[in-house]
């Protein structure tokens, strides 16, 4: 049974916030419902991929390269084949003619270099952890033991680690074709004019360190076949896309391949991928005729889950003496890693339209080169391109404020789009449909106690307190709800951005909803139920939402880019409307009136001005029995719908961070964090709150804690959680969160998406705060993560 949140913390926040829609007790939308999926997820009483047991199941383990770059001279698997419990051992060479190449679905330019990407390396390894052989055994332990018996003879090749060096003539090559994958440029307005004789020029280089997405559930894959058809279970965000791509990659006909994403424990983009392990598990079950399963260890995951970020951003800003921005010029090096995976080259492009942030300017230019290195490929990670862009512009706006000795809020005010200017087409060509930066900022400043903290900062500076206070702001926006199919097409992406929903009233009046989105922690079952409950007038608990299995959900584009509610929730709403329309025709037939004479309220059609009515449950039964259907109405009350948005949605907000920096040790501790987000209408405030908290943690993690570190030979040093630091609740402050509400105009729900906002906003807010604390020491940048040692060295 689902309970409402009785403590009412969230509800109270909504009530106290004048700008938000009034909660209506008769409506489900807007209620802080506890998530109906949580009991089974939290208790583990569900099917995670690793829980799957199949008769005769065999276990797979991968032999991985201990080197960043080497030629494979030979792989001797003979000893491993003789180990107890070992069923088969294959090297890359053994499967070379069958394994194909992992796909890249986003060829961003005509001349992009997409190297062959064998799931298991055959001749050369190009990143640490790349698979070179695999063992199939009767249990996981024996499979792992047999890995030790595989003898791989490597001839070391020089690693390629630094992007700028990689682009020089003298650099060793990752691929024969060279280290440049593509160069993509974009320009609007007269950038030279904007920079010519500009009174203020700010020129900065920021490093977006490489991050390792760390979903709570490691990746896992299981595969089986009956000799003709195949089923693949994977801890994936994208069962539908995966099915298409695997059919293209493996040659298994699409209609013979079922892909299932059972309950999935987090992804953050890292499970938006077609992985080597998925392809190889299908290949192994095809070769052996037996079911197989693979689950990664955490260390294996740190090496071979696709990594995130890793850009060197050169950003130049030209401004008038009063702080008004003339133009922004961005030159980006984006580390692709060793290969282009599913959307690797597209990630920096998602940022291309965001480096202008919420600000008006006359000119903008963007130039991005994707570079191959001997590291794990990068790909989408929470925010994918947008956090990087937001970081650069929000950092550089603070630099502009410092240069002009203006308050950072004031500089932003002088440049941002005013609320009466919406819809506003930005210099990057996007049309921001709605927003109110003034309102969000005012609310944030007041919750933060901005003036008081500024006074304390000044006081600490004056008395030379060893603990200095810094205040950071981030007035971010982002584009989400990925995406209008026509826009994706114009950016050369291999697919569209529509979503599908199916709503079926069952004979007993209950409702089954099938969604093409693929939740992996977001709470779709709850939020979709709230939408359906209001639309059809049925109880929340009478609704079940199913997803993630291509045999059940036959159409879908899956979950990433804060798209599920904006696109998938809308598809479900559209399907509800179709169901209601069908029910209306049936009700009119049954009640012997015109459909126009019916009014629908609280789950029943009533003949206007009479007591004569039919509930939607009664109509569902009648539609099932089909004894007396009107002409042209088919049995059952059900409908399918798709939704393809006309525009992106643009959440925005103002985040403020106060940070205490101990100048004796360099330790930075967040003292106060205020997040005021505008994500449009809110279906479930509790889920929004959870997404914001998790997002903040992840963005703060980039600012202060996380970094994938390689040594000079290219070995990844951060392969365990003792070395790759992830903050937990113990390391994070209490977050003060609130919202403003400017509904999106691109969808009738007025929703914008909230999955990435916290991550995008918080990283620059935190680093701005760190730098703000240190400005009296002459510091204007600290490279992320702002470790105590880096801070200490900066102020020595």
């Amino acid at each position, binding site marked *: 049974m689902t309970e409402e949140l009785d403590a009412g913390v969230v509800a109270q926040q909504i009530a106290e916030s004048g700008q938000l829609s009034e909660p209506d007790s008769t409506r489900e939308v807007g209620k802080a419902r506890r998530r109906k999926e949580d009991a089974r997820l939290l208790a583990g009483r569900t099917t995670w991929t690793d829980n799957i047991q199949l008769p005769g199941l065999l276990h797979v383990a991968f032999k991985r390269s201990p080197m960043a770059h080497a030629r494979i001279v030979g792989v001797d698997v003979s000893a491993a084949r003789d180990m107890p419990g070992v069923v088969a051992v294959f090297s890359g060479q053994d499967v070379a003619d069958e394994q194909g190449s992992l796909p890249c679905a986003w060829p961003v330019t005509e001349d992009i270099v997409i190297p062959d990407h064998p799931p298991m390396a055959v001749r050369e390894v190009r990143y640490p952890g790349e698979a070179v052989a695999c063992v199939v055994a009767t249990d*996981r332990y024996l499979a792992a*033991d047999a890995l030790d018996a595989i003898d791989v003879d490597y001839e070391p090749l020089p690693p390629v680690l630094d992007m700028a060096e990689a682009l020089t003539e003298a650099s060793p090559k990752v691929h024969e074709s060279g280290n440049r994958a593509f160069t993509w440029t974009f320009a609007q307005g007269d950038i030279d004019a904007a920079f010519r004789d500009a009174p203020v020029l700010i020129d900065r280089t920021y490093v977006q360190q490489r991050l390792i997405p760390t979903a709570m559930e490691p990746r896992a894959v299981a595969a089986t076949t009956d000799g003709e058809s195949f089923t693949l279970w994977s801890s994936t965000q994208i069962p539908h896309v995966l099915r298409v791509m695997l059919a293209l990659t493996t040659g298994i006909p699409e209609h013979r391949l079922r892909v299932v994403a059972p309950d999935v424990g987090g992804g953050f983009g890292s499970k938006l991928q077609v992985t080597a392990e998925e392809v190889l598990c299908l290949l192994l079950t095809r070769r052996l005729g037996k079911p197989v399963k693979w689950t990664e260890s955490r260390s294996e995951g740190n090496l071979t889950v696709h990594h995130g970020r890793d850009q060197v951003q050169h950003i130049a800003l030209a401004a008038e003496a009063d702080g008004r921005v003339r133009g922004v010029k961005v030159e980006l090096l984006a580390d692709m890693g060793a290969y282009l995976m599913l959307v690797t080259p597209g990630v920096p492009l998602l940022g291309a339209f965001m480096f202008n942030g919420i600000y008006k300017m006359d000119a903008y230019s963007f130039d991005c080169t994707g570079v191959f290195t001997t590291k794990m490929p990068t790909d989408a990670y929470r925010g994918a391109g947008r956090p990087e862009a937001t970081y650069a512009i929000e950092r550089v706006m603070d630099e502009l404020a410092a240069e002009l000795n203006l308050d950072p809020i004031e500089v932003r005010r002088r440049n941002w789009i005013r609320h009466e200017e919406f819809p506003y087409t930005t210099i990057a060509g996007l049309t921001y449909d709605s927003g109110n930066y003034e309102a969000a900022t005012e609310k944030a400043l007041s919750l933060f106690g901005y003036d008081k903290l500024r006074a304390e900062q000044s006081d600490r500076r004056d008395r030379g307190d060893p603990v200095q206070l810094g205040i950071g702001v981030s007035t971010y926006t982002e584009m989400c709800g990925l995406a209008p199919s026509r826009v994706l097409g114009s950016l050369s992406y291999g697919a569209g951005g529509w979503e599908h929903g199916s709503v079926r009233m069952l004979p007993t009046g209950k409702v089954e909803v099938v969604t093409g989105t693929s939740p992996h922690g977001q709470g779709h079952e709850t939020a979709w139920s709230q939408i359906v409950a209001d639309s059809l007038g049925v109880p929340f608990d009478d609704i079940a939402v199913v997803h993630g299995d291509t045999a059940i959900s036959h159409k879908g584009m899956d979950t990433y880019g804060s798209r599920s509610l904006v696109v998938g929730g809308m598809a479900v709403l559209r399907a509800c409307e179709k169901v209601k329309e069908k029910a209306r025709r049936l009700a009119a037939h049954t009640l012997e009136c015109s459909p126009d004479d019916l009014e629908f309220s609280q789950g029943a059609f009533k003949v206007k001005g009479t007591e004569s009515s039919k509930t939607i449950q009664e109509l569902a039964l009648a539609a099932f029995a089909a004894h007396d259907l009107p002409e042209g109405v088919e049995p059952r009350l059900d409908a399918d719908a798709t939704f393809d948005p006309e525009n992106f949605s643009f959440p925005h907000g103002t985040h403020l961070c106060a940070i205490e920096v101990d100048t004796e*040790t360099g330790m930075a501790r967040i003292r106060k964090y205020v997040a005021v987000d505008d994500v449009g209408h809110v279906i479930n405030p509790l889920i929004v709150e959870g997404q914001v908290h998790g997002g903040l943690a992840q963005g703060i993690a980039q600012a*202060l804690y996380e970094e994938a570190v390689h040594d000079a030979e290219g070995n990844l040093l951060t392969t365990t959680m*003792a070395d790759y630091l992830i*903050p937990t609740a113990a390391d994070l402050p209490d977050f003060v969160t609130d919202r403003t509400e400017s509904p999106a105009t691109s969808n009738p729900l007025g929703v914008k998406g909230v999955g990435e906002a916290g991550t995008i906003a918080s990283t620059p807010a935190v680093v701005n705060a760190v730098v703000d604390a240190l400005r009296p020491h002459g510091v204007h940048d600290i490279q992320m993560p702002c470790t*105590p040692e880096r801070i200490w060295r900066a102020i020595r």
Partner: protein
Amino acid sequence: MIPAQFDYLRPGSLQEASEALASDEEAKVLAGGQSLLPLLRLRLAYPSLLVDVSRLEELTGILDERDHVFIGAMATHDEVLRSPAVIAGCPLVALAAATVADPAVRHRGTFGGSLAHADPAGDLPAVALALECVMVTSTRQIPAADFFLDYLEPALEPGEILVGVKVPKLGPGWGFHYEKFHRTAQAWAIVGVAAAVRRANGSIQEARIGLTNMGPTPVRARAVESALQGVELGEAVRQACAEAAEGTSPTSDLHAQADYRRHLAQVLTHRAVNAAAGRP
């Protein structure tokens, strides 16, 4: 966890455990598993036999003796930090135990295991050193000063098992503090300082300082200890603590460079001494 194969023995007596360990060079003691299990999981250790000492009576319990507290090797960090005998008799141990890892680890990891593992990044070896604890093994008693030989190398002979630790009660007038510097709550100390300070008449009479992660073994900051003798609280303490890194040999690794560790040792020693002396 997918470790390599090993045999497992849970002996019923200390003697049986010692014999099993002595008869097999590749055997390892398994206590709470705090350090051993990660090594097994990463296949960095391939022991032939794990001797599980968790059921040995001799290794359990925390006893309040007249001049010391005896902490059984199998006492978990959580038991230690909540023990009235420890809190009253040797509070520094409780203070440091409370900073070990996270609650889940503190309920499994053991006091004896942390010392016998002899990891200089662990919080308890520096405390044992500063408090001049005595290690009680299956065959003898070893002063802490002679126990930590090198990185992960305790002075235990094959077959010798750490049974417990005698922690001296320092008596009235002493104050204590453990200053741990780490980036996240669950992370290892970059540097830690265990300080015990005896104060009288506004000045420091005696100080004992152990440093965590400032070399291959835990180390005593002897120079600071002698510089602090008779020093009044205030600026003089800071000056005395400037010698904290003397005689240490910290490593440079992923978490910190050696010069930064030396700097931290000074700052943190100053803070630990002040805190132990009751000064905010």
